[in-house]
């Protein structure tokens, strides 16, 4: 079975596409290791966005789609960060999908 190997040796079960099988497995270390697998090294700038998305999910039950993510970040972290170019620099070509994955949100059914 596909698994994520954490620095402390624990193995976290993943599905075929690299999503967590159980969302309860999410932790800061898990997020960091998932990010490393996508060649992202998490900094405070990343965490600011991840926390925003987790908070948004807590409030609404939604994982924000691209344009909504940009607006959300603009509203809560300022207009200089609420731009797709800023988010793509942090999280790559599909920031909304990647942030949701790193934040431990449910896997979207509609991923294409």
């Amino acid at each position, binding site marked *: 079975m596909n698994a994520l190997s954490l620095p402390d040796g624990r193995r976290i079960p993943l*599905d075929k596409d690299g999503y967590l099988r159980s969302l309860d497995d999410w932790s800061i270390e898990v997020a960091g290791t998932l990010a490393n697998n996508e060649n992202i090294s998490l900094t405070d700038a990343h965490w600011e966005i991840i926390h925003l998305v987790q908070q948004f999910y807590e409030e609404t039950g939604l994982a924000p789609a691209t344009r909504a993510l940009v607006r959300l970040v603009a509203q809560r972290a300022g207009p200089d960060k609420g731009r797709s170019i800023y988010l793509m620099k942090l999280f790559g070509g599909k920031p909304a999908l990647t942030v949701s994955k790193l934040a431990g949100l449910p896997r979207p*059914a*509609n991923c*294409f």
Partner: protein
Amino acid sequence: MKISLLIMSAPGENQSNQSALSFARAALDAGHEIYRLFFYEQGVGTGTNLAVVPQDEYDLRAAWQELIQQHDLDAVVCVASALKRGLLNEEEAERYERPAANLAKGFTISGLGQWVDACIHSDRLVSF
């Protein structure tokens, strides 16, 4: 006229799935074009190839399949509706490690974007 259908009820659940089929046939007979059939919510139950209908009852699913193949219709089942109701094609069965695929021939699985696209490219969207 270019028409798309939004079908939200399963065969046998109530009258509406059968009405949709009759409407589609009538529209084609009258010379209209059907741009897309979009199956949503319980409507995705139309696309299973595992249902067994008593021999003295009308098999709506077989009739849909025949119509779709005969007129080469674009028949899309909503992926989110389909997954949670246990309707999968080979690709989704493999992705989610399920033991079988049961999507009937002629149907494809895709997102609500295909419904939006149907709204944009049809003169009318008729929902059932």
